[in-house]
């Protein structure tokens, strides 16, 4: 085990695969000597050279398209979109080209590529540099969607994403970059499509993703200590593939479910998950599922407002407690 930050884990996961496979290359803005604006690629150019770590101009369409062209002709490229909001600039490449080409060509074209991005809020960057866009990607057939919450998962999921034969949208949460954790040395792969029970519990299930996972875990700690409520916290880790088995089994045990989502309300990932639960585990439920989300608004810049918008530990505790107590 080695302790490292979430940000160091990004470079670590990429480096492990670059060591293993010479066809792994990466492009993006400021990823070379600058080491990335979030320092997530620090040290990589010194180790792997400018032919494998390539700085690009501010041309998201060009380099995301180039990643696709490289993937269809033998490389395993990684593209870094500095902020996930910038996916909108290259959305044709992602939604129309990358996601659909295997299907449209009936399997003639394979696209083993990863698009990494700094996702999510909490840094007071305002509405165009703070969005959680994993649900955009989730809505497009042909994209796998990953959003890790810990350094160990960053490495294990990065390795799995790079090795995956399909396009993967890899959402790194910018509010987690400074967090630390132990990462296993050597071969460490977290398969896509496997959720993790980060805290077992019996009274309710809390489903969370990325930065909402540590908040949900802290809320569960508080619910247990202060209110005698034992919540099971599940880190979905990937939205596509979605580990519905783990979700449904947990709901079967607890009979109550909450989602904690950083997405704006409408069509957030929890809406789909709750719909699956309603369809397949309705008779296991003791009460309606509850979604704890960001309101359906662009994110504000002011610290006080942004903190009100994104689900907080207090909001999770209050919502779970009041809903459970109302049922008693």
């Amino acid at each position, binding site marked *: 085990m080695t302790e490292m930050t979430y940000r160091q884990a990004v470079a670590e996961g990429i480096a492990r695969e670059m060591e293993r496979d010479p066809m792994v290359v990466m492009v993006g803005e400021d990823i070379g000597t600058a080491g990335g604006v979030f320092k997530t690629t620090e040290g990589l150019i010194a180790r792997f050279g400018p032919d494998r770590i390539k700085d690009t101009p501010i041309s998201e369409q060009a380099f995301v398209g180039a990643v696709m062209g490289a993937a269809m002709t033998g490389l395993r490229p990684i593209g870094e979109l500095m902020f996930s909001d910038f996916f909108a600039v290259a959305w044709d490449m992602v939604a129309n080209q990358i996601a659909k080409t295997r299907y*449209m060509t009936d399997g003639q074209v394979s696209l083993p590529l990863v698009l990494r991005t700094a996702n999510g809020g909490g840094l007071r960057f305002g509405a165009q540099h703070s969005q959680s866009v994993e649900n955009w990607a989730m809505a497009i057939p042909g994209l796998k969607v990953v959003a890790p919450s810990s350094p160990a998962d960053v490495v294990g999921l990065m390795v799995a994403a790079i090795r995956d034969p399909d396009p993967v949208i890899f959402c790194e949460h910018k509010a987690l970059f400074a967090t630390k954790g132990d990462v296993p040395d050597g071969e460490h792969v977290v398969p896509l499509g496997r959720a993790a029970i980060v805290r077992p519990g019996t009274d309710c299930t809390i489903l969370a993703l990325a930065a909402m996972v540590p908040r949900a875990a802290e809320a569960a700690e508080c619910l247990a200590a202060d209110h005698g409520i034992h919540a099971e916290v599940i880190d979905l880790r990937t939205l596509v593939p979605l580990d519905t088995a783990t979700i449904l089994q947990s709901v079967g045990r607890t009979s109550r479910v909450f989602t904690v989502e950083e997405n704006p309300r409408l069509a957030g990932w929890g809406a789909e998950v709750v719909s699956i639960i309603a369809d397949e585990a309705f008779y296991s439920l003791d009460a309606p599922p509850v979604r704890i989300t960001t309101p359906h608004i662009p994110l504000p810049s002011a610290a006080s407002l942004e903190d009100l918008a994104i689900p907080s530990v207090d909001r999770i505790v209050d919502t779970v407690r009041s809903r459970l107590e109302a049922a008693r």
Partner: protein
Amino acid sequence: MTTAESTDLDVRLAVYRTMTECRRFEVRAQELFFEGLVRGTTHLGTGQEAVAAGFAAAMRADDYSFATYRGHNHALARGTPMGPLFAELFGRAGGLMGGKGGSMHITSVQHSMMGSYAIVGAHLPIALGAAWSAQYRQSGQVAVCFFGDGTTNIGAFHEALNLAVVWKAPVVFVCENNRYMEYTAIDAVTAVARPAADRAAAYGLEPIVVDGNDADAVLETARRVIDRARRGDGPSLVEALTYRHGGHSRADPGKYRPDEEVAEWLRRDPIPLLRDRLVADGVAPADLDAIDAEAAAAVADGEAFARSSPEPDAAALETQVWADGGSAWRSGTGS
């Protein structure tokens, strides 16, 4: 020495054969559209065959082609067989892509035809990526990317040109300037007279304009820019002046074009132009007639193949979203 003499006769005969096959295929595809066998839409390249045939003749078998939704010619020019191509237009199981792509997405990777892209501009960055891959793998391959004049006003065109030059990528960008972006004259909506060539200087590239209806001139230009890319001297941007004989798509009779203009370009049809030159260079007309007859037979055979091909199996609907062949979005494993 004239252009015609500087290119060898066998290659020029192959170019003539390709052009003839393309023309006959597309004319028949249009007829079959009106019979209801070809569904959806088609964008024909009739009149523009010299660009596809001339470039294909200058390419190595493993060089990559990237085309637009007007891509039948480019697929055929790389050797894609007519039967599966017709079957794809018919939406049949025997189609190149099993009926999942259709006319606007013709792809035949085994012929290095890396796709037809239906969002204007998208494939320039993608072709650049294939060229970057060839450069990284030191394979010696070149990517050739064909697009229309309308593409020169979209951002991806400019982004791709800049990055291709910065990376010195082995890619050739070929603008098929047929004077109209869909239904609108390109000069009415473009800041410069030559929509591609006049932009070349902005990226440090030589402005190259070629008569896109002169197959010999296209072949000569193609050889020059492809050799340059293969030598490692970087990308080129070629503007080929040509004209589509029909409208933008099957829904468009093309009535916005002046009659005299259409008549003038029909007089400059690239196929009789090359045929007359070949005859002047000593090829027996009977040999060219034989090529025409063989092309007609290939079209008839291709059509018969497509007609006999069944509708796609319903099970095909949910296949090939992922590399495992399936479309599952939920994982069965618990933890």
